[in-house]
């Protein structure tokens, strides 16, 4: 088993990513985007693609960098630290992992388009307020050689701008995953103003035509393709949440050292010191779960489910603690929009729900541990 320590390459990748993000996409970038009423920056994604980030999980034969899941987690973690909004998770991690499960020319073309930055994806699986892919009700009715999709998907992250959709639909004897261009007739997308200033859409499908070519994997067997993609996405989202927690904690720690009250830095008060040390400890424990999830996805993907859910559950909890402590320890200024902590808090809430909340992943852990 590879050791639970970051490799030289991973440390260099993290440093390079942080250098780039601090310059090109700090929290101020997200703020400016929000103030301009935008949720996506195509120019930023183009730069990320040029650096190989869009193709982080795309095989070299398809023009990707093929760096592996632990490396994808490193990038996601740095994006969490700087609250960078990008199609990275939906496209470079989730869609690329789904497409990698298939070895045909169509999938290779799609992967190449991802790596080049030209094609973005959104994962349209959930229909209710909680992550429950198995409960999908959207129908794909047989129609000649193809299908017609009818129904609604909610909380489709990046669904407002992505040019392709991965749609989970109910077929005769199970669930089937479709890859459909987002501009196909019958698709209506309603972008929603989300608390984290990022894109998410409600998408209705009204008799949308799909051919056999649009089916990813086998009919009635979505999970063979989707499960690895969800695991990769959940792990990367956990890494993002862990980075987010570290970012929020860093701001809080700096504030404890500079803010004075009663003539002394507030960080000299034991009540705050112990809370800060507890939060740091929580971040450290979560970081181990993140590292482990990446190692398992790279080394033993068939048995990675426990590691992934452990990481997502821990990261969700740690990020929530970090932002709540962050606002409280900053006092009144933490409540102001002018200050960045609120951005961290809102992203933490969205990240907590997406791809399964704490309870969902705790349930997976319990089942896999045998109780």
């Amino acid at each position, binding site marked *: *088993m*590879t*050791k*639970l*320590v970051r490799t030289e390459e991973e440390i260099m990748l993290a440093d390079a990513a942080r250098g780039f993000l601090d310059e090109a996409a700090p929290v101020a970038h997200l703020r400016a985007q929000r103030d301009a009423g935008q949720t996506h920056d195509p120019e930023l994604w183009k730069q990320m693609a040029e650096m190989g980030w869009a193709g982080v999980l795309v095989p070299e034969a398809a023009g990707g960098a093929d760096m592996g899941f632990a490396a994808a987690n490193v990038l996601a973690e740095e994006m969490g630290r700087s609250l960078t909004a990008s199609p990275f998770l939906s496209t470079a991690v989730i869609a690329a992992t789904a497409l990698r499960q298939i070895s045909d020319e169509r999938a290779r073309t799609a992967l190449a388009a991802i790596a080049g930055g030209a094609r973005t994806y959104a994962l349209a699986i959930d229909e209710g307020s909680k992550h429950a892919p198995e409960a999908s009700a959207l129908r794909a009715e047989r129609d000649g050689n193809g299908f017609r999709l009818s129904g609604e998907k909610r909380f489709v992250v990046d669904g407002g701008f992505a040019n392709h959709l991965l749609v989970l639909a109910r077929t005769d004897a199970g669930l089937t995953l479709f890859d459909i261009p987002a501009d196909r007739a019958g698709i209506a997308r309603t972008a929603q103003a989300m608390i984290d200033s990022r894109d998410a859409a409600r998408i209705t499908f009204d008799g949308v035509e799909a051919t056999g070519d649009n089916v990813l994997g086998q009919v009635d067997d979505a999970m063979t393709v989707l499960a690895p993609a969800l695991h990769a996405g959940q792990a990367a989202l956990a890494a993002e949440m862990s980075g987010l927690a570290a970012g929020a904690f860093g701001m809080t*720690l700096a504030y*404890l*050292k500079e803010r004075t009250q009663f003539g*002394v*830095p507030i*960080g*000299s008060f*034991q009540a705050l*010191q*112990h809370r*800060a*040390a*507890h939060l*740091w*400890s929580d971040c*450290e*424990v*979560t*970081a*181990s*779960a993140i*590292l*482990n999830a990446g190692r398992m996805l790279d080394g033993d993907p068939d048995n990675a489910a426990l590691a992934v859910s*452990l990481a997502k*559950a*821990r990261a969700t909890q740690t990020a929530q603690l970090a932002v709540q402590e962050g606002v409280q320890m900053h006092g009144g200024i933490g409540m102001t929009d002018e200050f960045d902590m609120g951005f961290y808090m809102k992203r933490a809430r969205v990240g907590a729900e997406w791809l399964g909340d704490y309870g969902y992943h*705790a*349930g997976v*852990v*319990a089942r896999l*541990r*045998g*109780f």
Partner: protein
Amino acid sequence: MGQDSGDLALFRADIRAWLDENCPQDMRDGAVGEDSICWGGKNWNFTSEAQEIWLHRCATAGYSVPTWPVEYGGAGLNRDQEKIFHEEMARINARLPLQSFGIWMLGPALLQFGTHAQKLHFLPPIARGEIRWCQGYSEPGAGSDLASVQTKAEDKGDHWLVNGQKIWTSYANKADWIFALLRTDRDAPKHKGISFVLIDMRSEGASTRPIGLISGASPFCETFFDNVKVPKSYGEDIPSQVGEINRGWDVAKYLLTHEREMISGSAMLAGSGRSLGVILSESGHLDDPILRADVMRAEIDELAFGLTLERYKDQASAGQGTGDASAMLKYVGTELNKRRQELIMAGAGADALAWDDGRAPDWLRSKANSIEGGTSEVMLSILSRRVLGLPG
């Protein structure tokens, strides 16, 4: 565990063969409870012939203290070899041949601060399980504020005259020797007047009294020194203190860090231990939704903590020191163990309330985890000042 590289693969094969040949069947039951531990010492009564044979064979091969240098009674294993050794021991469920404060505490202190002659004199008897040591740190007036110890050692030329009282001296009533923090300079600042001194418990004027605890056991003692004469030297270049006189705090601090790692690694079996959820599902009360939710949270945190122990070990063997961050392991690990014991009691219900059930003493004992070796609050203060750099 994955593929070992060439040398390590050979090493693993050697260890496996050695264990196969030398570990008695009765020592392969994986027992870890108090009754199964071999503590050694002059008064030790082996619980079985197998226990005696196992200790003797391990000590001869250096495997009672595998990482100590060969000349001091160890096998001189490096970290990678040590990991393999423990993996192979675990593979056959082998008991540890010997456990003691000499191995855990005094040995590391001597290896770090002792003279060569001191090491040759004191370490091999520890490795062979001949001398059992105890620790004389805390006093009635010096708990978390350990550096304020008052037990005094007056300079009488060729010996120290020691007077005072130590408390929480684990198994002092069964120990042969004690390593103690004594005040050797009453005028110096409190951290600069302490020496780390080695004392024979048979010395005239030294006495102990066990303290009854809430768990019903009495592993801790009070130890009294009433005009005890401690020689300044036990032979050529074998001073009775470790490190320099009045610099015992350096040794104590080093050992406290070591002790924290030990407590978080041993008392707390999170991650490597049995699933709490499985243990409680056997007791049949996991259908209580509130208990189940608490157990799920604990399971998640224990698994993540187990990975953290592994990560810190891997960091250490990769040469990335963890230093004061070990206070985090101590803090998190002991708090998790307390939660685990609470949930085990809650899951067992009335079944665990009778003394002869055996779960209550473990539950009660766990309450000391976050006190001994530095309280959780002291750990948090260490982290906030030394790791986070918050003002003191």
